[in-house]
């Protein structure tokens, strides 16, 4: 059971809020459970929608690299609920399931290119140790990203790092709200026949 109840969908009267929850149920990332917790405070549900729409789904930095950074955060802060979600748009942009496997070893893995490694090192510095954002890292970042991309990427990582640090205290689980589809779930969360 979640530590804050899921706001009942059938009691949600505002069509904008209903649409946000339905979008989560049909598309995932985020899935509807966390959105239904936010629905207790409508301003937060609207706010999170715009955070995600403007700085994750869209924006100046390519979505696939933000998706890798999002799941790196999931793995490093151990938010299992968040880490078992996959962005459909990330898949459309070429991410495969194996691209998520070695995120915690990104510095030594050969799966990631220099641009991805720099973005993940930035993410690691934000999550764990600002001292890691030293001159050498900033040099690598500026080699691969514009200032605008670095602002959006850092801001987005901050949003997802904060939200995941909170969500992991809530004991939410998949398939507990408006279970319309498996959209956005990692293979580990799917029924065996669907993997």
């Amino acid at each position, binding site marked *: 059971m979640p530590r804050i109840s899921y706001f009942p969908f059938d009691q949600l009267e505002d069509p904008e809020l209903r649409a946000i929850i339905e979008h989560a149920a049909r598309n995932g990332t985020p899935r509807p459970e966390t959105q239904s917790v936010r629905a207790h405070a409508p301003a937060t549900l609207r706010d999170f929608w715009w955070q995600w729409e*403007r700085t994750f789904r869209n924006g100046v930095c390519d979505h696939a690299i933000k998706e890798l950074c999002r799941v790196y955060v999931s793995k490093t802060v151990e938010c299992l609920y968040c880490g078992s979600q996959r962005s459909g748009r990330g898949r459309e942009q070429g991410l495969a399931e194996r691209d998520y496997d070695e995120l915690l070893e990104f510095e030594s893995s050969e799966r990631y290119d220099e641009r991805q490694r720099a973005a993940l090192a930035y993410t690691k510095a934000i999550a764990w140790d600002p001292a890691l954002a030293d001159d050498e890292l900033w040099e690598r970042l500026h080699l691969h990203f514009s200032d605008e991309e670095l602002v959006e990427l850092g801001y987005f*990582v901050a949003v997802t790092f904060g939200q995941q*640090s909170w969500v992991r205290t809530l004991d939410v689980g998949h398939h507990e709200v408006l279970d319309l589809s498996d959209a956005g779930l990692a293979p580990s969360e799917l029924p065996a026949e669907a993997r």
Partner: protein
Amino acid sequence: MGGIDPVAAGDAVRARVPDVLRTYRDTRANVAESGAVERELKVLCARYLNGDPEVTGFERSERFDDRERAALGWAQAIAWDPTLADDALWDRLHRHFSEPELAELGYYMAIVHGQLHWLRALGIEPSGDEVLAP
């Protein structure tokens, strides 16, 4: 200084991407500076997340009431160790806050926690009133 305050360093960085600045200003107005949870409690939690030594020792201090201690205990769990959000803490949180207040406060702390981490990586240290929405 004249009659117009300069923007804070965090907003000056966000302004490089108008949608980022616009989004965060909406968060500041709709979540940090308004809502059901009182501003003073949000500032207290933000000060904890910012490592303010007057707040980080809240468990040993008599300056804080039970409601503030419960909120700060949750801030500690969010920032450092989710296992601290155990049955006992949730009992205390539900005793002092409604569910809409908990959703708002938790979401707010998540935003501040993330922004503070990013700003530190940029070498920016928010202080004073800035900490409400750094």
